[in-house]
């Protein structure tokens, strides 16, 4: 099992906070963990080096806030540095005369075709008249794929089969757009390796003929160390104006985002979060930074939660959680609601601290275990759920009988809950120390 950075940093920081003071040696110890974790998240080796140097410089420096433990201070700096590196999100540049030309480029299988359709839908929703261009004449049925998507969305697709050279297809499409008053042209080019000279030259030709306003690199969030070379070469050859990170609905930590930002310095404009045509989102650097650090993605969780349960409940549950008022009922409620929303471990990972929590509760909380947790808590009285400390041996026997489990199971759950509670208290305490009572490392969290 991967250990997330949260877990590792928590261990290091537990030690640090015990010592209470941040020395250069402390920072070095923490930086080793930060470095390893960033590498595990697929941030490029060289980029990590620079990043760690920047963080270290700031950490050893003077700015130690009164309200934070040294450990929290370091997490905060790492998080801020990542956010800074990820840069601010940017919109598509649709200024000037129409048609605006948008060109999608990238490696094979990165998700260009799907993204083209998503973008077209997104733009139409904002009042544009998009024209899709099928410029991948190489992959079998790539043109057909785009045509099917276009039909599905009722967005026209310009295609000339697979015999016409792509630069010509693209030039024709732009001409057609001008004549038929389309406002945006989105060109789906074939996937290619950045080292394939002929194919890269083709992109240069397309660019030259169509003068795109946006050249977007579509890259897979799962990309490893090569993200740097890929982004760098595409940028050198065709001058990128933005990045789109796809397949963000998986469990990739997405360190490639940092790498690509660092070498191109162009903004991340969208992230792809699913196979459906509306699964395109604006980029949130703070969420991404949290994700790369394995610190959870509180905002996404809350958004997801709102989709499945009513807002009031979410808010109060989250608020109680933040305040550290966390009893067995909350524990169960959280578990139940999260189960409604999808695979448990994935969701738990989105809550700060929960990554560690799930592992402390059980390495893998299966549905079966979940049922058992439910059964045990349901067999408790209200009072017992609120004040688990009153659960003595005879109560345990009763609960075990009532839930068809053993006293041992009950004990196990209680000790898991205690750990969870302790963790929540820790997290809440961190939250209180900060101005505005916000959660450390999660700026903008509208709660607590």
């Amino acid at each position: 099992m991967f250990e997330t950075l949260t877990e590792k940093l928590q261990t290091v920081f537990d030690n640090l906070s015990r010592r209470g003071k941040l020395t250069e040696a402390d920072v070095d110890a923490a930086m080793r963990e930060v470095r390893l974790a960033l590498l595990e998240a697929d941030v490029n080796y060289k980029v990590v080096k620079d990043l760690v140097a920047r963080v270290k410089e700031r950490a050893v420096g003077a700015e130690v806030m009164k309200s934070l433990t040294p450990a929290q201070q370091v997490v905060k700096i790492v998080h801020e540095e990542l956010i800074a590196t990820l840069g601010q999100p940017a919109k598509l540049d649709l200024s000037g005369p129409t048609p605006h030309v948008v060109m999608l480029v990238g490696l094979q299988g990165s998700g260009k075709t799907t993204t083209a359709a998503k973008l077209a839908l997104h733009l139409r929703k904002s009042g544009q008249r998009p024209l899709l261009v099928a410029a991948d004449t190489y992959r079998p049925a790539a043109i057909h794929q785009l045509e099917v998507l276009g039909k599905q969305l009722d967005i026209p697709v310009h295609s000339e089969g697979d015999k016409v050279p792509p630069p010509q297809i693209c030039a024709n499409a732009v001409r057609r757009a001008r004549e038929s008053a389309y406002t945006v042209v989105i060109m789906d080019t074939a996937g290619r390796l950045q080292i394939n000279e002929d194919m890269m030259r083709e992109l240069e030709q397309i660019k030259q003929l169509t003068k795109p306003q946006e050249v977007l690199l579509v890259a897979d969030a799962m990309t490893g160390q090569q993200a740097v070379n890929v982004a760098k070469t595409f940028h050198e050859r065709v001058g990128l104006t933005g990045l789109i990170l796809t397949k963000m609905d998986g469990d990739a930590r997405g360190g490639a985002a940092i790498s690509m930002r660092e070498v191109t310095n162009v903004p991340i404009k969208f992230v792809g979060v699913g196979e459906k045509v509306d699964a395109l989102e604006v980029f949130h650097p703070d969420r991404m930074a949290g994700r790369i650090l394995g610190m959870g993605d509180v905002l996404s969780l809350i958004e997801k939660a709102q989709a499945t349960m009513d807002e009031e409940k979410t808010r109060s549950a989250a608020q109680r959680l933040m305040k550290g008022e966390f009893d067995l009922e909350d524990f169960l409620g959280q578990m139940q609601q999260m189960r409604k929303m999808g695979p448990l471990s994935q969701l738990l990972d989105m809550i700060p601290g929960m990554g560690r929590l799930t592992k402390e509760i059980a390495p893998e909380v299966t549905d079966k275990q979940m049922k058992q947790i439910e059964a045990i808590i349901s067999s408790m009285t209200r009072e017992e759920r609120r004040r688990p400390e009153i659960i003595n041996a005879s109560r345990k026997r009763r609960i075990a009988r009532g839930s068809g489990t053993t006293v041992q199971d009950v004990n196990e759950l209680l000790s898991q809950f205690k750990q969870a509670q302790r963790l929540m208290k820790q997290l809440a305490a961190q939250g209180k120390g900060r101005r505005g009572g916000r959660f450390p490392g999660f700026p903008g969290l509208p709660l607590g």
Partner: protein
Amino acid sequence: MLKLFRRTKEEELADQQRLHDSLEKTRSGFMGRLSTLFQPNELTEQTWEELEETLIMGDVGVETTLALVEKVRQRARQEGLKRTDQVQAVLKQEMLALLDHPAEMALDEPRLLTVVLVVGVNGSGKTTSIAKLAKLYKDHGRKVVLAAADTFRAAAVRQLEIWGERVGVDVISQGQGADPGAVVYDAIRACQESRQADLLIVDTAGRLHTKYNLMKELEKVRNVAARQVHKAPHEVFLVLDATTGQNGLSQARHFKEAVDITGVILTKLDGTAKGGIVFAISKELGVPVRFVGTGEKVDDIAFFDARTFVESLFK
């Protein structure tokens, strides 16, 4: 064990050459440094650091890299190695050990009908790899049929059908939106009856391994095969893009859990990526790499040979 399908020496050499060629590009890149690293020089602290860097840059992963380097360091101490070229030999051994697996594949065993399930995340190269496998095995006298069980992605069926025509093998499909299990059911019947085929390769929709429902669907597809043919599916290949970083291990783990993958097809090795994550997959999950994809053309496939793979890194 009697094999229906045995490669000739020339074919093996051609495979090695192809793998070697594809790695050539990589070698000139960061892995190239591995070679220069191993000029017969004195060992220094920097040697170890550079080694670590090189492995990590090859997506081998922090954990595996640290373990490898530590092991080699230890052996260097014990065996009193003083020069970088000696360390190279030891490192190669250790890397090879991580990739060590029995060479036999269920795919090559004789039986009436062999069913191969091909799975992986979106865009990893499943459909292309299936076309390549179909050609490879057809050329060796197998009667191959493909099942278009990616009924989800737009034009996926058409893509496989085009490959089928190019390679000259039948494709069984029910169009987009059909139940993938039903497609596999049909395809197996067709193999056993009208088509008289002995090798069925099933193309499945790309899916992220974290999607609970989609993984369940895959389990169902697997069960359909298992119910119809004794011990099927005989192979379940995970198609892994060599560009993938550490997430590759999570992919392999989830797919193994859901459909018990038996091997990895490592694609896009013609790029600059190394696919170093296969060391972790091989070691931690015991899943061997079986084939490598080295391009977009139908012949761009080679049997994975651990020795060539590791050997080439140090050329």
